[in-house]
Structure formats: C-alpha cells, structure tokens
C-alpha cells in the first residue's frame, strides 16, 4: 500500500529553521570531508597507533559514561525530587564543570587528585594509587567534564515526568528506591538516553582536561582527540583524516545503539 500523509503538512516556520540548523551542523563536516586526503585514509585507518587510540577512546568514553550514569542519575534525581535546601544553587554548581575551560578543569583535577593533590597525596601514600598519566586518569577526566550533561538532561526529564505515577507506586508499597527503579527511571528513559549520548559524545571528544590531567602517552592515555591535536601541529591533513575516522566510528556506534535503545520494545 502506498504511504499516505496521515499528519498535517510540516509547518514551514519549523522546517526552515530545522533545516538551517541541520545545515549549520553538517556543512562544516562536509567541508572536512571534501578537504580530506582520501587516498591516505585506508593507510591511517589500519595503522597500529590509530587503532590503539581509537580503541582507547571508545573504552575510556564508555567507562566514563558508565561512571556518569552511576553517579549522575542519582544526583539528577536528588536535584529534581529531594527536598533539599538551596537546590537551585546546587543545580547551578553542577553546571560548573561545563563552563570551566577544560584545561583548567584538568588543573583542578590535578590539584585534588594529583600526586600532591588534596586527596591524591593520600591515595598515593596509602594505596600507592596515582591517577595522572594512567588510563584510569583519562576516564576520570572525561567523566568530570561529561557528567553535567547527563545530570542536567536527566533532571530535565525528571521534572517533565508526571509525579502522580510515583504517588501511585508509593500507595502500592514501593519504597522510593523501588519507585525510582521501576517507575521513574523507565518513564524518563528517553531523557537518560539523550543524556548518555551527550555524555558519551562529549567524553569521546574530550581533549583539554584529559591531556592536562592524564597526560599524553601512546597506548595509555593518547585518545583520538589528543592524536588529532598533535597531528594538527605537523600534518593538518592527517588530523582531518583522524577526525573523520573518529566521527564515523561515533556515528556508527550511536546510530546502532539508538535503534537498540529506542526502537526497541517500548
């Protein structure tokens, strides 16, 4: 059967800016694609270093996202539902790592978790744990920068959700924790997915805080953005190719996951 248009015409006032917005986001990428020295792409794609950087990027961004989900969703819930004093102020504070230039964020992390840092000195002295210059450090830096995205997205979703369903759960004897797990969380899933996507993508592209806190050592802390940045110094074209590789992989992962998460049984 032919597909009929079963909704009203899309309004021009919305479609025009939407397409402009799309163009604004996508045309620069087209610029990169046009400029890329395609002949060298296969070489680079299969070089050991690039492979390693890519793997490291994906692993660290994913771990950072997990950390953000584990800590960030409860935090969002606390901000949206807990009756805390000074909630508005706390909420504003949570956005701070967003505003901080990433390099300063890295410095802040060093001040706290570095070898001589507020907490880091004890970590080092008592447990012999030192985060800077390690892969764990990359995860910490990425999580620090990316967490606000998750928290704010999820909090927005929580505020938009109808709290009367939570009341219904309470009358069925569900504790706030069970209510959260079985009622609240499923109903804000789209917001959580949106937040996780933002978080993962931001972590994947993170540069400043990572290099400042975790340094840059191939195979341990050199993620793709770091490789791209350094390549820019000497071979700008190579940097563009690396960026495109990063983009393709991230688009592939997101397009794949989205279908799983969202197109699923819901």
């Amino acid at each position, binding site marked *: 059967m032919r597909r009929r248009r079963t909704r009203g015409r899309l309004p021009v006032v919305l479609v025009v800016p939407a397409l402009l917005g799309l163009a604004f986001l996508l045309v620069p990428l087209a610029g990169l694609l046009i400029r890329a020295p395609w002949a060298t792409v296969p070489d680079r794609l299969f070089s050991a270093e690039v492979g390693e950087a890519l793997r490291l990027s994906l692993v660290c961004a994913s771990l950072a996202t997990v950390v953000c989900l584990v800590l960030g969703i409860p935090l969002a819930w606390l901000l949206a539902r807990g009756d805390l004093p000074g909630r508005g102020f706390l909420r504003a504070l949570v956005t701070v790592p967003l505003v901080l230039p990433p390099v300063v964020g890295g410095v802040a992390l060093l001040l706290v978790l570095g070898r001589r840092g507020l907490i880091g000195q004890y970590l080092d002295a008592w447990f012999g744990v030192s985060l800077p210059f390690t892969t764990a450090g990359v995860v910490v830096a990425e999580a620090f920068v990316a967490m606000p995205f998750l928290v704010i997205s999820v909090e927005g979703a929580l505020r938009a959700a109808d709290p009367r369903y939570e009341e219904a759960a309470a009358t069925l004897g569900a504790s706030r924790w069970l209510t959260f797990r079985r009622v609240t969380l499923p109903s804000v899933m789209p917001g959580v997915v949106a937040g996780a996507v933002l978080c993962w993508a931001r972590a994947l592209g993170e540069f400043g805080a990572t290099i400042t806190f975790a*340094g840059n050592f191939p195979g341990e802390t050199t993620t793709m953005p770091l490789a791209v940045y350094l390549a820019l110094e000497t071979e700008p074209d190579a940097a563009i190719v690396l960026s495109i590789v990063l983009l393709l992989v991230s688009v592939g992962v997101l397009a794949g996951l989205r279908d799983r998460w969202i197109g699923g049984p819901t």
Partner: protein
Amino acid sequence: SGVTGDVTVFAAASLTGTFTELGRRFEAAHPGVRVRLNFAGSSALAQQINQGAPVDVFASAAPANLEQVADAGGITATPAVFARNRLRIAVPKGNPGKVAGLVDFGRADAKIALCAEQVPCGAAARKVFEAAGVALRADTLEQDVKAVLTKVRLGEVDAALVYRTDVAAAGDEVEGIAFPEADQAVNDYPIAPLAKAPNAAGAQAFVDFVRSDEGRAVLAEAGFDSP
C-alpha cells in the same frame, strides 16, 4: 613615520608576554597606530593564515610553521630569525626527585614530562637526548611547553625539559638546571610580513621594531637569546 592604522600580528602563544609588551611600545612609538595581537599555537596560526586571515605579521615559534605559509604563497619576504630559545631542565621547587642532569631522565623511578615530538620543544628534546646519548623516556608527551611546565609546577613530575624563557616566567615555583647538550638544539623564532598584508608599511615597521635594539632588550629580559 608613515605608519598608520591597525597592524595585525599573529604570534606564537609562547610570545604572549613579550609581544604584548612589544606591541605596547610600538604603539607608544607610533601614535595613532593600534597593534592587534592574535596569540595561539604556531600551527593554528599558520592554518588561519592559509585560510585567508587578514594578517600583517606572523611571528612563529618554529621555522616549519612559517614555511607552511610560505609554501602556500602567503610570504614572499625572507623570514628573519628574531630570537632563539634553549632547553633547560625544570624541576619542582626543592627538586624532590634529586635530578642533576639529563642522565637522571633515564631513572625508572623518576616521573618525566616532555613535549610531544610534533611540537618544536619536543623535536628539540629529541635532539638533546641524541646528543647526550641517553635513551629518550617520558611518562607523558605534552602538547606544548606550558602544559609541561604545569606538570612541574604542581609536582606531578620530577623533571621535564622546557625553554629557558619558561623557567624564567615561572618564578620561584620551578627551578631550572642548565645542561651542556642544550646548545645542540637551539630553537629559532622567525618573523615575516605577509605578502597580502592589508597594512604593508605597518607590517614592515613592526618587524623592524621587533628586531631593533629595543625589541631585543625586551626579548632578552624574558630569557630569549639574540640570534
């Protein structure tokens, strides 16, 4: 003099302090002239210029970046080297890692930061290691000298190689240690007016000013060697 209007100067980030001062002095010497300074990494500046940025003067931290512009036809004049910089060993205040010379960089217990090879100070570091016959070893390869210096200041590493100017600028938080092989890797800072400079006269005047005695004095005070 016949210099008027704006003079737009793209200068390497490591020249932030000195060129800000030079710009101020140039404006004082040429009333009515405004020096517009754009500081960023040399390679980023080269990119911007090649993409058509309206620039009068380019002062780079390495000859390679200036050549990129020249290759693209942006510079026709012969670049002049206006300053030189040498490496120094930088250690945190009090030298907790007890580092005395380049040989200590090979110690397994010492945390070391160097510049990445892709940036000039990294290339220079490689040369001095070769000259000293020490195997190059590092815990981190940073994107620029300032990042290396940050690690030293915060005590995250026991030793690093940075420029003399950086040690000077860091004050008493960082101690510098000179070493003989530094002479093997002197880094040249070239400057040139752009071929399509909107203010050609101003461009030439600024280049001349940087290379004048007054200019050299400012650079020397920051720790640069004269060419």
